């Protein structure tokens, strides 16, 4: 993805064309807005002309009735101006907002279909910027930019025509200051922009320093650093202040300079126009109207130069947005949308124009592209010569072949980096293997509909990810609204032994998860994760056992919850606890990405191979440390007495 800092980009016809595509659904509104803007410009231009009428034909000819009519006409114009101005802003802002909604949803929807590998390569912050800030920049273009620009251009042309009509010579005089304005504006704009960039950097530095000091306040006080850090802060603060003073200086110079240029124009008009009044009979009304038109001429010019900036930024933003939209979706999802084709409240289609993939009708799960449609899953899993490299080069797993029969429980054991998690990632089809294939119920993964496949697999990751929302919503994650009854959720929580702590929460099942569940203990999070998998009631269970130490009581709850979870399911468990390994029907030992041994705990010990060595090693180091992994904080000192035996057997054979 392109960098975020080059926020300006030249005009690009291809990008603009694609952007304009988003306006298509709203072309009627846009056309209306353009008409309104044109009318508004005409009304705006009428003011000075009416003034001239009032002065020349009303006042100077002592025609009170005419003055009266002109005044009424003027008032009517004002009223119409209010109406048109309001209409214009309403229509365009609404269109802008609707386009933003369309674009954001298109982006978000696209993100839901991107392969997991995309998120390995692109930092979340950057992707977020596409959906949030970049779309906002485009909104600027749609609402404040294009249509107003039409109005501005029209106003400028209108003013010039009116002035030519009034007096072409005087126009030439007034325009003689134009180059001056351009020069002053250009010089200052370049400087002010640089100065603003400087201010932003310094403010960021100042705030970073402040933030760091607030976070590390304890350390600072203990080290008697208050004086020195106050000095450090003063320095950064002064840098920020001076950068601002620089900008103040530019502004102080710029605004009066512009007024001065304006004054030059007025002086010239008085001088030259006055002579004309004397000798060529130009009227006073014309002179006054002319002065007013001059003022109205410069404002849209300044606006237009502002809009050019908007356009440049929009170009840069749209390039990044489209680049994201053009990123190929995950395998198996080509040409299908993951969602019901819902349409917005205003009836506007939410499918991006020219973004062909999302246009495809939504197929019911399991019916697309010959995807297998199967009755209830028996849960037979076959790894057949599977090989995979994240970078396409360095194989993380190679030639992995083993089968899990329906209802069988298989423990996956191996040192850190042996490829255990990769196998799970491949089974869930987060990545596509480069070699061999994985079959579920005899059907190769590539023939499965990814959503259908994942619905059949319950997953308990090592560290549970809680979404903001209620506890109930988190337990019932991924259930169809019809299935997510409170009853089912409570039953799942009870079976996982999570009900006890949930009911103690203020609000119980409706308690809100805060800070991604940081307020829960590691043990509580695990129990929630079990409850989540139980509620899902999938035939296949994939579990990556957590390694975090928890208190005794929770530990025994987890043991019981785990047994409940694994009962009568086909399961693949990355095991860290000896008890889990002992309970498995079979242990598969993975080393350097290859299956090295298979069998029961006893068989493998008798084999005196890798498993036996792993086991021995974990026994020797009291803390259960292995393979360079950080020691589990020797659990004993953390616990109170009366540790049940199951827990003491807490052999963390490997933890990653």
């Amino acid at each position, binding site marked *: 993805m392109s960098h975020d800092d080059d926020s300006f980009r030249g005009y690009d016809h291809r990008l603009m064309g694609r952007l304009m595509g988003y306006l298509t659904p709203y072309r009627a509104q846009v056309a209306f807005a353009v008409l309104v803007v044109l009318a508004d410009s005409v009304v705006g231009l009428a003011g000075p002309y009416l*003034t001239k009428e009032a002065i020349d034909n009303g*006042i100077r000819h002592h025609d*009170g009735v005419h*003055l009266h009519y002109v*005044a009424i006409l*003027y008032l009517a114009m004002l009223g119409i*101006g*209010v109406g*048109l*101005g*309001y209409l214009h*802003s*309403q229509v365009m802002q609404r269109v802008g907002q*609707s386009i933003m909604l369309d674009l*954001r949803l298109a982006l*978000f929807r696209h993100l839901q*279909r991107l392969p997991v590998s995309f998120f390995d390569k692109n930092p979340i912050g950057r*992707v*977020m910027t596409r959906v*949030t800030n970049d779309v906002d920049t485009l909104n600027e273009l749609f609402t404040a930019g294009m249509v107003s620009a039409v109005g501005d251009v029209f106003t400028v042309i209108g003013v010039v025509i009116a002035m030519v009509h009034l007096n072409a010579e005087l126009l030439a005089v007034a325009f003689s200051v134009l180059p001056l304005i351009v020069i002053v504006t250009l010089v200052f704009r370049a400087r002010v922009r640089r100065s603003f960039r400087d201010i932003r950097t310094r403010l960021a530095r100042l*705030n*970073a320093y402040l933030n*760091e000091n*607030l976070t*590390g306040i*304890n350390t600072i006080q203990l*080290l*008697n*650093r*208050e004086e020195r850090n106050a000095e450090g802060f003063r320095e950064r603060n002064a840098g920020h*202040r001076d950068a601002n*003073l620089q900008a103040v200086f530019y*502004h*102080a*110079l710029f*605004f009066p300079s512009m*007024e001065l240029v304006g*004054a030059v124009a*007025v*002086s010239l008009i008085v001088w030259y126009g006055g002579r004309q009044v*004397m000798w060529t009979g130009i009227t006073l009304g014309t002179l006054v109207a002319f002065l007013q038109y001059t003022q109205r001429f410069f404002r849209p010019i300044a606006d237009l130069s502002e809009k050019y900036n908007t356009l440049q930024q929009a170009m840069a933003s749209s390039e990044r947005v489209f680049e994201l939209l053009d990123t190929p979706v995950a395998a198996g999802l080509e040409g299908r949308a*993951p969602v019901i084709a819902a349409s*917005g409240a205003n009836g506007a289609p939410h499918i991006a124009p020219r973004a062909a993939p999302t246009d495809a009708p939504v197929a019911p799960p399991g019916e697309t592209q010959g995807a297998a449609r199967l009755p209830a899953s028996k849960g037979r899993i076959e790894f057949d010569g599977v090989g995979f490299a994240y970078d396409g080069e360095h194989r993380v797993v190679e030639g992995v072949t083993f089968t899990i029969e329906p209802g069988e429980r298989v423990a996956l054991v191996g040192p850190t980096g042996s490829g255990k998690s990769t196998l799970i990632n491949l089974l*869930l089809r*987060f990545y596509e293997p480069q070699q061999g294939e994985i079959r579920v119920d005899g059907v190769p993964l590539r023939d499965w509909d*990814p959503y259908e496949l*994942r619905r059949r*697999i319950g*997953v308990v990751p090592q560290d549970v*990810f809680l*979404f*903001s929302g209620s506890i109930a919503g988190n337990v019932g994650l*991924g259930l169809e609204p019809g299935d997510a009854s409170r009853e089912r959720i409570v039953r799942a929580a009870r079976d996982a032994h999570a009900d006890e702590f949930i009911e103690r929460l203020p609000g119980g099942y409706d308690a809100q998860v805060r800070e991604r569940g940081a307020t829960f203990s590691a043990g509580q999070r695990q129990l929630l994760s079990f409850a989540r998998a139980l509620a899902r009631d999938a035939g296949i269970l994939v579990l990556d056992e957590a390694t975090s130490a928890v208190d005794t009581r929770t530990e025994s709850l987890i043991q019981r919850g785990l047994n409940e979870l694994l009962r009568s399911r086909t399961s693949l468990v990355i095991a860290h606890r000896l008890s889990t390994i002992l309970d498995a029907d079979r242990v598969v030992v993975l080393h350097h990405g290859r299956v090295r041994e298979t069998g029961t705990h006893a068989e493998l010990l008798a084999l005196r191979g890798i498993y036996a060595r792993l086991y021995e090693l974990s026994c*020797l180091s009291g803390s259960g*440390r292995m393979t360079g992994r*950080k020691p589990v904080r020797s659990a*004993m*000192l953390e616990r109170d007495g009366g540790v049940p*035996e199951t827990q003491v*057997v807490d052999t963390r054979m490997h933890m990653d």
Partner: protein
Amino acid sequence: MFALAQPQYLSRAVDDLYKGVTAAKLGQYAVILFLISLVGGTFKYFMRQTIIAISRHMEYDLRNELFEHLLTLPVSYFQRRTTGDLMSRATNDLAAVRMMLGPGFMYLVNTVVVAVLAIGFMLAISPRITLYAVLPLPLVSLTVWFFGDRIHRGFEGIQAQFSALSARVQENLAGVRVVRAFAIEESEIELFRALNVEYRDRNHRLIRASGLFHPVLTFFSGLAALLGLYLGGREVLAGRITLGQFVAFIVYLAMLNWPVYALGWVINLFQRGTASYARIVQLLDVAPEITSPAHPVTPGPARGEIEFRHVTFRYPGTTEPALRDVSFRVPAGSTAALVGHTGCGKSTVLSLLPRVFDPEPGTVFLDGVDVREFDLHELRRRIASATQDHVLFSETVAANIAYGAPDAGAAAIEQAAARARLDEEILRFPKGYETMVGERGITLSGGQRQRACIARALLLGSPVLLLDDCLSSVDTDTEEGILRGLREHGHGRTTLLVSHRVSTVRDADVILVLEDGALVERGRHDELIALGGRYARLVREQQLEEEIEAS
């Protein structure tokens, strides 16, 4: 102010036009008009340069004051408040105050001066039409004030929704594997859509208000111009004023436009500014609870003798005591270890000594003096801590190690790093000791951070060393090396250490076992084993664990 003379000359020029005037006279008028603008512009330049610049200086001072004040507040204060909230005080609230003092004040002055003079001149031309023509102008101020406030609040609501929207995207992307694994893309999109629709609706509501703002404003100022034109025109017709005066009148009226507009804005700025200022003052008024006594005692030489006498301590805002009647004495130069499970009060003991939290008077003593009688800086100079949170700063590795002793030389820094067993790794960093830590540099691992903090504490050379569970992410060999180094090169430092590992504490001169804030056992490793109490049970459990694993 000078600009206000301009219409006077414009008026004379226009009148002269009809009485007959020479080209030279016209040129003179043009030059005068230009000169007036020049002088006026110069004044405006200086006005900005002074008023706005002064507001920047005041912002600078206020921000420094705020920062220095924050540094005096106790840790307990920061536990009650979020960093984000304090940051917002120091940025948004300060900005609002600065806007009030700078542009707010400037435009207020400008408005008052221009309004008084322009209306004065207009009154001189014709009191009657002035009255009518000026009538719509307060409406302009009112409009700006009314809409300005609503737009501001509407905008805040939109910002809040935008944050919610961003948070949603962030969560979805961070949890991408869970989203995929649970196939919840559909409901995620629905949630996102709902937030977006609300965002759009809030924008629509703002648009309804702001869309009226400018047209209404244009209408009111146009109305004033119209009234001037119409009424002024009738005065000319009636022969009460000259055409020149009429033109001058219209120009004065136009001049009032911006000031009355600014007035409404200024009112908003003052409303926001005073509210923000109140919040800042509130923060500045928070008394630093932990300070040096008015007359600190002059303590004797620093030896490092620690004593707790019947210490019972409750954290601010809690009722359950974190420590219950804890008494112990650590003679200068010896090592005491605190053990017990999480939440038993080990860290609390360590935080009372340097007054991170304040103990009751007459309960905690250093070198025979109540810690509350010490000068705060002197007290903390005698204590070197490596805390649990192992905070490092965005400085070089060397500056981080020397954070408590900024004048330390390179040799001392390297020695401290060596004692913390960090020296070899530092040499492998891209720029060695000059490598930046943090966002603009490298990220240290948990174990490296812990050892950097130990090095920082060791460099201080204080007689007391507090180590709060700061070896947990360090492997056992390295830990052993560090502890051995401390014993050998400790130079008779009193060491108070908290650990979860038996291997860390077994060689301490005294082991203090805490449970629920109470000191339940004390003694050497062998003594406590012989005692057969809680510590012995902990050790036995560990042995048992090893035996079962070995079976």
